């Protein structure tokens, strides 16, 4: 197999300029004229910075209006199972929703108007920690609502005949 030699040009610069790997004669080209080198990410040899984990913030640059970040509160919760159905997959994700604001009847059509951009926004996550990291990074105030522990009764067929008369079934 041809070895793919990566010839890199590292430029010394104060700004973190990526060094783009360049093609050499030994790079294998595919039918479209591309080599593996072309599709690789540029080599970033800039020194890593260290920041405290809780300093990570995205809210200031996210474009969310400042009042929203300061005044609104989020709920981090597990949505309840739809009581009219027996599917339980909804209960395996975490959601972040914002506090509800006023809705009023639209004078034209009678629809529900709202002045709140977050009125029907819900962000879904796979785990509680992910949701919390999102709220922390964006800078929202949040509260976590733990899902209730579902008590499952472990039933068995032998209970129909058990010594405990309560679980016996009279027809057996």
């Amino acid at each position, binding site marked *: 197999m041809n070895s793919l030699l990566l010839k890199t040009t590292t430029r010394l610069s104060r700004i973190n300029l990526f060094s783009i790997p360049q093609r050499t004669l030994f790079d294998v080209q595919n039918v479209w004229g591309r080599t593996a080198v072309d599709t690789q990410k540029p080599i970033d040899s800039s020194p890593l910075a260290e920041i405290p984990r809780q300093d990570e913030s995205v809210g200031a640059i996210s474009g969310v209006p400042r009042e929203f970040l300061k005044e609104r509160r989020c709920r981090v919760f597990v949505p309840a199972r739809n009581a009219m159905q027996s599917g339980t997959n909804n209960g395996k994700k975490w959601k972040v929703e914002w506090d509800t604001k006023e809705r009023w009847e639209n004078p034209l059509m009678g629809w529900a108007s709202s002045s709140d951009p977050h009125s029907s926004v819900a962000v879904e996550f796979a785990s509680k920690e992910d949701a919390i990291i999102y709220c*922390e990074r964006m800078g929202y105030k*949040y509260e976590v609502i733990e899902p209730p522990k579902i008590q499952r009764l472990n039933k068995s067929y032998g209970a129909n005949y058990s010594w405990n008369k309560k679980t016996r079934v009279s027809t057996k």
Partner: protein
Amino acid sequence: MSLSARIPQTLKQVRPVLSVDHAEAKRRVLNLYKIWLRQIPYIRIDYIKNNWTEPRLRDVIKENFMRNKDVTDIRAIDLLVVRGQMDFVETAEIWRQQHNAAVFDSTKNTYKKKPASFLERFYEGH
């Protein structure tokens, strides 16, 4: 509720956007502030139909910078500086229009304030 209450302070290795530490980020911020200050007399000339004075423009620029003073993430600071520089280029090249230049007006709300107390909200109808 903050993360620092839950997780002990750990350092995270991140790939920097532009600056590697806070000192460099500070230098960028101060440089940006200086070029905005130097542009003030030209802002007054370029954008017509305004009643801006130089002290007022200085206050507006200072306020815009102080709005982000609590950001501690170096990458966020760099991105904010880049955005400020983009705004500066737009202002200096007169790509802004009149409504856009209204960003130099006072940032305090000049029209009706949002009701704060219970009674004020009651009178509004909420």
